[in-house]
């Protein structure tokens, strides 16, 4: 568990980062009405609902937020944002919480969704496109190899209908893509301007 000082520090950093997101300022306008939580199709499976997450962020409970399953259960359907009376597109903040958690190494116990995202990144930076067969193999080897047995029926259907090729398609610009994706990221333009000033 992080101490209060560290939590406050992280909370400060993330709220600053939120402000830099497109329409990020809007998060401050949340009126805690709960429309997001009531609309969310997966809130039944979350440990904290989206409304609670916003309240927790305001109370500097950043560690609990990042350790919750909520952030990684969000399926990115954007219904919360479509209905929010304050016009907050909370899905984009969920994305940012995911990135923030990865950056600071704080996440939920169940790491399956994080591993899926990482493996997807590996496959795309390798080939320039998503090669599904490789992604399935990489992901299941890392999470639960026994799952391969469960995948057999669908895989057979895919093979029979020629919907699972064995080789990735070639992208000519793949070497450029790889270089960009593997490079250490430059800071946000706004941060750079701040440093310069």
């Amino acid at each position, binding site marked *: 568990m992080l101490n209060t000082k560290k939590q406050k520090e992280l909370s400060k950093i993330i709220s600053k980062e939120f402000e830099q997101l497109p329409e990020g300022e809007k998060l401050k306008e949340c009126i805690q009405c709960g429309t997001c939580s009531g609309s969310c199709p997966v809130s039944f*499976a979350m440990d904290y609902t989206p409304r609670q997450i916003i309240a927790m962020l305001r109370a500097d409970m950043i560690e609990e937020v990042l350790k919750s399953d909520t952030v990684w259960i969000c399926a990115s359907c954007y219904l919360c944002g479509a209905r929010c009376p304050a016009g907050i597109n909370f899905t984009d903040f969920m994305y940012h919480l995911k*990135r923030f958690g990865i950056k600071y190494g704080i996440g939920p116990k169940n790491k399956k969704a994080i591993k899926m995202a990482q493996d997807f*990144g590996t496959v795309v930076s390798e080939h320039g496109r998503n090669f599904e067969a490789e992604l399935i193999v990489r992901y299941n080897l890392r999470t639960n190899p026994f799952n391969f047995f469960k995948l057999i029926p669908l895989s057979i259907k895919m093979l029979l209908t020629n919907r699972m090729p064995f080789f990735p398609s070639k992208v000519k610009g793949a070497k450029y893509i790889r*270089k960009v994706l593997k490079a250490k990221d430059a800071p946000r333009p*706004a941060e750079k301007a701040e440093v310069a000033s």
Partner: protein
Amino acid sequence: MKKYTYYPGCSLEVSNKPYDASTKELFKALKLELEEVPDWNCCGATMYMNFDEHKAVYLAARNLAIAEKTGHDMAVPCSACFTVLQKAKKFMKAEEGLQDKINGMLKEEGLTYDGKVKIRNILEIIFNDVGTDIKTLVKRNLKDIKVACYYGCQLVRPKGTFDDTENPEKLDKLMSWCGASPVFFDAKTKCCGGMLMSTKEDVALKLVRDILYAAKESGADCMVTACPLCQINLEGYQTEIIKKFKEKLDIPILYFTQLAGYALGLDAKQLGINENFTDAKKTLAKAGGN
């Protein structure tokens, strides 16, 4: 002949090949030309945003930069690609300096993005650029086919650029122009779980079950989709869901391009209907000649 620069997206060259085939056939029948974005790459999907925002924008922007050079509108069949590409465009416009940063990443390959390209979903293209004219091309009578039109999430959200975010109607209208009979279907924009099917299976299976249940309740003979991921979740896991929930939830799932193409007299095989995981033979047998 109107021309578009076609961005199929990764899943259409692998697990969603029938969507690719039926889109191409349908556009041909509508006398619209599709030319693939040269050397396109993955748009980053919902995944890349999870760990690196600007590199995710770069992935989408590379395609936009290449498509821009062709001077045509972009035609996108996948809802996730459609949302991601639009989002990248929006971010580059909203955040000061971001477009320059992304252009810096594109520079070595000799690409630049200047924000001119129009990103359009194929459903919207057919709806607006062909419109009711499609009626004159209909060759088969689909009046007896009751269809539940499923839009999913990312086609109409976050902002609903071409249809309502909660009660979209364009797919229903298109299907009725093709002669089919759309039913009232209240799960039309309910989330199918998307990638949760791999990472949180129990949750996704329940979401898909609810959609299938609503479709059965609506009395539909089949469901049409406009998103590759929805299609896979709805058709690929149907057997498992029926077993798990012990309910009669079997319903043929078609890409909307397949049913539209079928109405236009195209061959089921051409449209890749025999490569779907659900069997639509009985439903399609209800179609009559004109």
